[in-house]
């Protein structure tokens, strides 16, 4: 089943969503499992096409499973370089000024407040 919103969704956004699902899973996933994990219920064929495209780009690997494939994210070979770049970024606290970060750091009071808000939300 495909909803109208999903058809308007650019292919790039779907690729991003699919890749995130693969990374979050930790084990290889079949297209059906990826489809189930995506929140906006895209068509199975769309998911399969997207996974094949990620595989073509070398971002996802796959192995035979039953009649189809199970996909997993590919770690880039020089993963250490990425890690080093990342710690370099981490060192410059100033970067949050142009690199708009999702969340700023929290004070202990902020943490307590957030937990309270989440708890209140769940009740």
């Amino acid at each position, binding site marked *: 089943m495909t909803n109208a919103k999903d058809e308007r969704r650019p292919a790039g956004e779907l690729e991003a969503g699919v890749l995130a699902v693969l*990374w979050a899973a930790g084990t290889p996933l079949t297209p059906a499992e990826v489809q189930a994990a995506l929140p906006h219920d895209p068509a199975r064929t769309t998911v399969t096409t997207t996974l094949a495209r990620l595989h073509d780009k070398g971002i996802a690997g796959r192995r035979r499973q039953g009649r189809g494939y199970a996909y997993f994210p590919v770690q880039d070979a020089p993963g250490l370089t990425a890690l080093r770049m990342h710690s370099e970024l981490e060192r410059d606290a100033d970067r949050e000024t142009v690199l708009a970060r*999702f969340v700023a750091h929290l004070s*202990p009071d902020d943490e307590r407040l957030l937990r309270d*808000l989440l708890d209140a939300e769940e009740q």
Partner: protein
Amino acid sequence: MTALLLLPLLLPLVAPALARRTARRLAPAPALWVLTLAALALAGGSLTALGALVLTGLLKVPAFASLGELVHPLRTPWDAVAVPSAAAAAGLLAVGGWTLTRSAVRQARGLRAAHTEAARRPAAGDLCIVDSPRPDAYALPGRPGRVVITTAMIRSLDAAEREVLFAHERAHNTYRHHYFLAAAELAAHCHPALRPVRDAIRYAAERMADEAAAATVGDRRLTARAIARAALASSAHRSGRPAVVPAATAGPVPRRVAALLTGPPPRRHRVTPWIALLLAACATASVGATATGMADLHHEVEVAQGEIAR
């Protein structure tokens, strides 16, 4: 009338209180514009005023006065302290210039590192995933803009919450928030009182992206939950670091979450633009005072040069 040039140095002092209220009460998008434009105007006014102080002080020194072809002494309302105040202004300009350069170099380095990191991997759409144990996510400006997210952050959120995060970061890139953040940073180095204004600008940009994300996923509560959980996940990872001093007021993240939970902006916003108008008036006054003061200074210099009669 040259005393008007002191006004642009004093006006930024009222900006923090106005900026905080503007960021809290105005809808995020107009707040972002008003705050950024006001910060730039106030920063420009304060820089010009400092420059004018330096210039007047220099023209009091005989060597520079002859260089400026002054035939009469330059008259200012602060004749007695012209040279010391010029020295102080020069000092402030130097400090501001130095911290600004340092910040610009750091940010350029950070951006370059982030771009190198993103360019190393083929993109899945606009997403760049970094394999790291630290939960982190940010928008990387550029053409095209990217969303960078670490594997730890991906695993801290469920699929629906990740959609919120993507929508949030894409909004930063779509609305080119990095220009606003850069302007805020620039202003903060021009006058110390503009630092809280920079924080208000950052907050407005985050709020705008939060609202855009809530509109994309169509769920304010989900958006609030995603932000709260992401913040707690990054905070848990940092717990080994020395604790920051507890803030008297809630930091930006709880305020963002609370703003989303309290529902869509109510109608009362029709009343609150008064605060924004006050801030805009403050910025306009600064620009006006600077322009008038500079015109007056120019006149005084021409008088001292003997080109026109008093």
